[in-house]
């Protein structure tokens, strides 16, 4: 059972606690208008790697994990698209004593992305199967980095091409996570940069607030434009300006306050 890896970065300092080796898995079922890594969206391409390959690489960075409390971060693309691969990989990582962070939006969960039907998530039976899969997988995860794209179904559909169901399903699974959860949200001008959206976001995550260690409002930037050019695609948000950093930070503080995060938890 091989995975498809778009690339990996050995000095990941932003995707989970400590120093992390970040594997970006190939393929994503969402087509976020603001995506800054559009080259990871398509289902083809990337390097084929076995779980053993991934472990061999991660083991080389154990000296860096030790003191920093780091480990491996599985990101993407959307890693849940390669569920079967992760089901092999995660227990092996645990055996090696390597901490696992999963960076996901909750979309995916098929056997492997090659046999994923893009509309599959909407039927009841598949939902049930996927939930079981997800629950099993999450029991291995030390840190969940959950990316919430938007707060209403209709806007989520416009922004990503999908409704909010899978994200809600992932939120419900949060109690199964052993470690802490980071909630991340990319703020794009004209989309969620308003109090109403932020309150809605708060309401979505509030039931799990005891598990939430960090909320990050990531201001939309224009570094993806170049990648669209390289891919010969039009940047869907070509005309959209970058998000004001201070404004994004202000919303971040706003959420932290609502979640009653104290200083200790925020820096933890």
């Amino acid at each position: 059972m091989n995975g498809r890896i778009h690339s990996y970065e050995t000095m990941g300092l932003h995707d989970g606690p400590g120093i992390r080796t970040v594997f970006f898995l190939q393929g994503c079922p969402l087509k976020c208008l603001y995506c800054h890594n559009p080259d990871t969206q398509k289902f083809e391409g990337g390097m084929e790697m076995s779980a053993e390959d991934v472990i061999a690489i991660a083991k080389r960075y154990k000296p860096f994990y030790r003191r920093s409390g780091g480990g491996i971060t599985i990101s993407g693309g959307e890693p849940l698209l390669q569920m079967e691969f992760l089901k092999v990989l995660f227990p092996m990582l645990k055996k090696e004593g390597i901490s696992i962070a999963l960076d996901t939006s909750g979309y995916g969960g098929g056997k492997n992305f090659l046999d994923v039907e893009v509309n599959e998530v909407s039927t009841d039976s598949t939902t049930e199967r996927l939930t079981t899969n997800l629950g099993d997988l999450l029991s291995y995860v030390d840190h969940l980095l959950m990316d919430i794209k938007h707060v209403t179904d209709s806007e989520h559909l416009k922004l990503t091409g999908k409704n909010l169901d899978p994200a809600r399903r992932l939120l419900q699974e949060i109690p199964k996570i052993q470690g802490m959860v980071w909630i991340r949200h990319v703020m794009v001008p004209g989309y969620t940069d308003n109090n109403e959206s932020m309150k809605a976001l708060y309401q979505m995550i509030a039931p799990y607030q005891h598990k939430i260690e960090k909320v990050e409002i990531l201001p939309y930037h224009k570094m993806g434009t170049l990648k669209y050019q390289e891919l010969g695609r039009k940047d869907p948000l070509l005309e959209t300006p970058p998000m004001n950093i201070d404004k994004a930070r202000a919303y971040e503080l706003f959420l932290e306050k609502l979640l009653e995060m104290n200083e200790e938890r925020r820096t933890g």
Partner: protein
Amino acid sequence: MKAWEGFEGFQWKDGINVREFIQQNYTPYEGDDSFLEGYTERTKSLWDKAETAITEEIREGKVAIDTTRFSGIANYPPGYLDRDEELIHGFQTDQPLKRIVNPYGGYRMVQDALKAYDHEMDPELEKSFTTFRKTHNDGVFDAYTKGMKKARSVGLLSGLPDAYGRGRIIGDYRRMTLYGSQLLKGEKLKEKDDIEGGSVEETIKLREEIKEQIRAIEEMEKMAASYGYDITQPADTAQEAVQFFYFAYLAAVKENNGAAMSLGRNTAFLDIYIERDLQRGVINETQAQELIDDLVIKLRMVRHLRTPEYNELFAGDPNWITEAIGGMGVDGRTLVTKTAYRFLHTLTNLGSAPEPNMTVLWSEDLPENFKNYCSKMSLETGAIQYENDDLMRRIYGDDYGIACCVSAMEIGKEMQFFGARANLGKTLLYAINGGRDEMITGENGEPIKMIEGIESLEGEILDFGQVMKNFTKVNQSLAKLYVETMNTIHYMHDQYAYEASQMALHDSLVHRYMAFGVAGLSIVADSLSAIKFADVRPVRNELGIAVDFEVTGEYPTYGNDDDRVDNLAVQVLEDFSKELKKTKAYRNSEHTLSVLTITSNVVYGKKTGTTPDGRKKGEPFAPGANPMHGRDQRGALASLNSVAKLPYDKVCKDGISNTFSITPKALGKKAEEQILNLSSILDGYFAQGAFHLNVNAVQRKVLEDAMIHPEKYPLLTLRVSGYAVHFNRLTQEQKEEVLARTFHESA
């Protein structure tokens, strides 16, 4: 003895043994930096005067030179910046920053330098000297063979210390403080008479040298007396401790214009005297810091007369006044003291500067507080380099220092014959071009033949086995020539430019290293990888020289933690080290090897044709052991892991230099995160047995701006390769090369 009052231990009193003195008396410090004091009004006033003089010299491009006399320990009247304000006294000449003319390394270098700065030597003196005195440079060229001269002129061996002072010798300057000159002289006299037997040359040479050492100590006494100090007896106070120590160092830089004039490892030693005075209530913390601040002001004002060409090789007028800080003792106690902090704290009190060359000896067992303080200072000043104490302590014990950038040696017990580096980029091209030089043609219009007996390569595509066979042969032949060249140089240096003042502060019987070096490791590794894993088709000119290479297919590059290519780099080093050891080195010295280029990677590149890895003719090499810029694609830690594989012990025992540039934000959002992450990176890197890391935490755009507006960044300090430099003092080409290096930005 009153000076030794309150000090524990006996062994160090029976014979010279500074280490034992430290072990018996120092106070390890595991606390944080909160005890440190800022600068005083007096320090500020003094430093302002110093800084004005320093910046004026750079701005005007003019240097003051004493052309009325030649170098010597006691040849210059005392000089002051502000006699009353200074707590520590002594300059090289009668005026701060005024340079000494040292003719013993070579007179042509002196003439070139004088001319470049529009000065003239006193004609009478010049005439007498050139008529009656032979120099190191004269001696070397008398004894060089044709092959040696050829290797030198094409740039196969570069930076050889055959026309200037070799440096890289560290006197145990602490001995002057602890014992005073009288005891030191007495010991030397005793030792001289004990030296008998052995070979005639070695024995007589040594006895003559010891006599010169004694004479040097007497000159130190005279020099100190001219400043009103009596150094014949041991130092009694913290001020005297710093002052006597500095006089011993000052003697070294008055007598010698060595490439690297390093300081040793002194903070735990000086801390003992400071701690005693603090206990006695004679000084307080502010005054303790003032002493160290003043010492560092003095060290920042050491200057040598050098040619502009020299500056092209070693940018920014460096002196490598390297101070090794921290580390652990073999008994498990840390050698970090409050004075280690005080020394680093001068970067805050006086602002960032390249000298002295602050070198932290990193151990996994260092106190957490100290690790994080160092990381913080790295992020704030960019002036610190790190070397692996856990690796070196096993070999040298716990009283070693660093000469120049990376060369470890036991203080007072070991010395080094410094030997520049061999250009492996060129030897690889010789392997491909039948032993002929790719850049230089002889009078007959044919490329000059550098190495005999190298078969021309047949076939359109380079065969890895054949290339390796030739490469090994070329390196065999070069290694022999290299050792013999070095033997010639150091024989003559001992003869005509002996460092009596520094050797006076060594044991009489010292262990000697002969330190060889290589340049171009990463381009050789990548080229061999291309030849092995892809198809490399040389494009040959009408003379049969490969002037370009067409590569089809994929191949791994050094810097991505990929064993397939990293092992090629390791093999190249192991093979070259083995070859060097086959030829006996002068004075039974131990062969060592470094992967270190300083800034000369730019100059080496200029002299080397296009290589199979895609580097074009004349383009710079990567510095030291760094992967070639832009080819490390897996992030910073993969790059570090590749370098960590290069073998230190038994192979590259003279050091492996790696320069790491990172934007501060890539290390974390907040300052505390950045500090902790940097400490973790250093721990992880060194835990794998890696040797050295320069840390530059700076944004590329700051450097770009500094290229256009140098006046905005007078203090911008950057680690280049084993030393730090003010960015403004690099040449345009060197600045461009620094900017081309990989900056690890964000993940």
